[in-house]
Every structure is written in structure tokens, then in C-alpha cells.
């Protein structure tokens, strides 16, 4: 990968040659990517690993291996991965779909009107809440004279029943349902910081060096995404001599 094939290239390389076969979609990868970016297909329904395997197989078969196609593919996969991370990660405040996607001016226009409308009614709702806050309700229930009519709560209830009820009421509420997500403990921000720190001091390094301190594969993946992000910002230059070869990373930003 070199800087000549950056996402800023005027002509987007044609990725249409590569097709995918997935449960949610079968057809050209370019179309799939567009559908995802337009949010017509949920990125979470697409196995990026499967797509990548397909692309590698496709690359091997292709007569001429196109660097531009590969770069574009990688960039799109990176965006999809980050979208996916953003969708799956709880409390992730940094990543926002639209920051990554860019949005058409028409959509921005329509949404600005919609959001402005909601902001206007939000003011009315605030006013309503304020006014209603001045009214107090009576929470005491029936006067004590009627308490004898209340059911005998301990009828047919033993200590174990009571304990079970207490357990239900006192159990701390589950914060988030994460049963479908493997916990991800690494953030892009941290990874960017790690790369910046390493390269800022040394000027350049191999990708292998940059991930030498990583314990888990997901950490390496996040670090790789961070590299792509820095590449997009023009902070690093990337070079890879051979397929699957060492990736050399050179710092282009200011010294740390």
C-alpha cells in the first residue's frame, strides 16, 4: 500500500469485479458497500471475515492484482469494521456513523429540519414538565381507617417466598445486555495514542513492532484500524513490499 492510492484519489477504483455471497446479500461487493453505507443493510449482518476471505481468494485468482482495488477494499472494510464496532460497543461516544460515512447534502437538509422541529417541541415539553412540576399528587392512598381491608400479605407466604421476592426486587438491574457481544476492551483512541507514541519517538517502525505489546488479536485489529485512521489523516505513510509481507510505517506528522 502506498500513498498514491489513498482514498482521496479522484477516481474511485472499480471494486465491482469482486462479488460476495452472503445470507443477506449476493452480488458485487461495491453494491453491498453502498447498501451498508446507505444503511439499507445492517453492517452487523455482514460477516467481514467472510468477505475478506472471499476477497483474498478473488485476489489470488485475478490475473492482475490491483493495488487500487485492494486499497479501496481495505478502506471500505475498515469503515465497516469501525461501524460494526460502533454498533456493538456499549457507551461508545466517539464513533458516529455519519462522521464516517459523510452524508448527502439533501439528507443533511432534511435532517436539520427534522431535528429543529424536535428541538422546538422539546422546548414545549420542557415547559410542560415545568408547569406540571408545580402540581403535587396525594400518594398516601386510602386513609388508615380502610387499612383493615387490605389483604393479609403473609397469607400463604413463608420465609423462602419472601426471600425470593426480595432477591428479585433487590437484584441490581443488568446494565446492558451484552450476551451477543464479546467484550471489547480496546478503543481506537488508545490505539491511536499507542501508535503515535511509538512512531513519534522512532520515526518509523514495522507493523510487527507496533503490535509487539498486544496481548489479544482484537487488540491488534484495533491497532491496525488506528493505523488506517492515521493514514487517512496523513499522519503516517504505509508501505508493503509483498503480499502478506511486512508493513512499514513511517511517521509523517510532527514529532511527539
Amino acid at each position, binding site marked *: 500500500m502506498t500513498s498514491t492510492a489513498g482514498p482521496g484519489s479522484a477516481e474511485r477504483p472499480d471494486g465491482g469485479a469482486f462479488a460476495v455471497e452472503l445470507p*443477506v446479500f449476493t452480488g458485487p461487493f461495491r453494491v453491498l458497500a453502498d447498501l451498508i453505507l446507505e*444503511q439499507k443493510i*445492517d453492517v*452487523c*449482518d455482514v460477516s467481514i471475515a467472510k468477505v475478506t476471505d472471499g476477497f483474498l481468494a478473488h485476489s489470488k485468482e485475478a490475473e492482475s492484482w490491483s493495488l487500487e482495488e485492494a486499497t479501496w477494499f481495505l478502506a471500505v472494510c475498515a469503515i465497516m469494521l469501525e461501524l460494526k464496532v460502533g*454498533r456493538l460497543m*456499549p*457507551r*461508545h*461516544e466517539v*464513533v*458516529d*456513523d*455519519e462522521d464516517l460515512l459523510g452524508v448527502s447534502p439533501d439528507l443533511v*437538509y432534511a*435532517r*436539520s*429540519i*427534522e*431535528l*429543529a*422541529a*424536535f*428541538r*422546538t*417541541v*422539546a*422546548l*414545549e*415539553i*420542557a415547559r*410542560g*414538565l*415545568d*408547569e*406540571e*412540576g*408545580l*402540581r*403535587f*399528587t*396525594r*400518594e*398516601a*392512598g*386510602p*386513609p388508615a381507617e*380502610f387499612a383493615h381491608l387490605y389483604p393479609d400479605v403473609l397469607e400463604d407466604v413463608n420465609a423462602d417466598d419472601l426471600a425470593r421476592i426480595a432477591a428479585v426486587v433487590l437484584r441490581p438491574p443488568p446494565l446492558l445486555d451484552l450476551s451477543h457481544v464479546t467484550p471489547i476492551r480496546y478503543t481506537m483512541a488508545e490505539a491511536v495514542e499507542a501508535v503515535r507514541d511509538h512512531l513519534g519517538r522512532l520515526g518509523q517502525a514495522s507493523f510487527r513492532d507496533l503490535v509487539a505489546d498486544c496481548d489479544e488479536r482484537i487488540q491488534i485489529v484495533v491497532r491496525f484500524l488506528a493505523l488506517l485512521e492515521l493514514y487517512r489523516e496523513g499522519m503516517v505513510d504505509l508501505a508493503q513490499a509483498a503480499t502478506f509481507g511486512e508493513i512499514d510505517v513511517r511517521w509523517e506528522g510532527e514529532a511527539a
Partner: protein
Amino acid sequence: MNDRASSLRSLEALLFISDEPVTLAVLAQALGAERSEVDAWCQELARGYEEREAGLTLRNVAGGWRLTTHPEAAPVVEQFVLASRHIRLTKAALETLSIVAYKQPVTRHQISGIRGVNSEGVLRALVDRGLVAEVGREETPGRPVLYGTTPEFLERLGLPSLSALPALAPLLRAGAGDAEAETADTD
């Protein structure tokens, strides 16, 4: 004392002991009367409170009739109970609450889409406050949670039902110029 007067008396007593809005159906059953009849009595009671400038008001909120103290008594009542019923919501929370109110049932993703920022934290805060709740799951892949407003939301707003929310349509037809001005104002 005639039947009607007696029913009005019982109705007022029932409203007094209830700690939530009481539906016409429940009141009608308790009083052995028609719902329309009970509705008329409630309106009569409500008017009575108003006319004699009472400390109480009776209104139809969140699908039922409910007695509350009069807003003008609020300063004294707040001092007395050393508490305020006032809930202060952040701008982000109000914005999100409005979107849920008008778009329900709505997913977190859709809310974030409209607001242009991640809305998970603010949505959770609204759920914690009992103004918003999960109301189901969308039948799409991933089955995302659908959110809607609670009866407490209506109660806190003093509205009889969701249809009493201010109309959104006229605001949507407004020009983008207005929209921007509005946005700038509220920021």
C-alpha cells in the same frame, strides 16, 4: 341527599384516595354508573374546584382522572414537603425525549440518526427516570429494542394522551432557514 349528589361525593372520595390517574372504566364500575355519566361528573367536579379557587385541581391525565394540588400552591407545598416535583432534564435529554414521544416505537439507532450523535447514555437516563421504557423489539436482524414513552411521561406533562402532544407537522414544513435559526437559539 339524592343519587347524583351521593355519587359525586363518592367520586370525589375515590379520586382522593387514588395514588394514580383513575380510568373512567374503573370509576364507572365503582360507582355503578355509565362512563359518560362519570365523565360529566368529573368535569363538574373539576369546574367546581376552579370556580371556588380551590387548592386542588382535577384533570384528565395519562388516560385517567387525577386530583393534584393547584400550581399556585406550589411554593408553600414545596416548602412544606421539602421536596420539588420539578424534573430538570438536559437539552440532550429533552431532545431525545421529544424524538421518542413522536417517533415511538423507535430504536436507539434511529434516535442517534436524527440527533446526529450517539444517544445511548441519554436514553438510558430517560429510562432510569421512568419517562421512557422498552416497548418491544423490532422484527429486523439483530432485533433492536424499541423505545416508547411511559404513562408517567404523560402524567409528568399533564397530558391526557399522546395525541395531545403539540403537532409536529407544521414545524417540519418550516424552511431550513427557520430551522437553523431555531437550532442556533436553543444551543
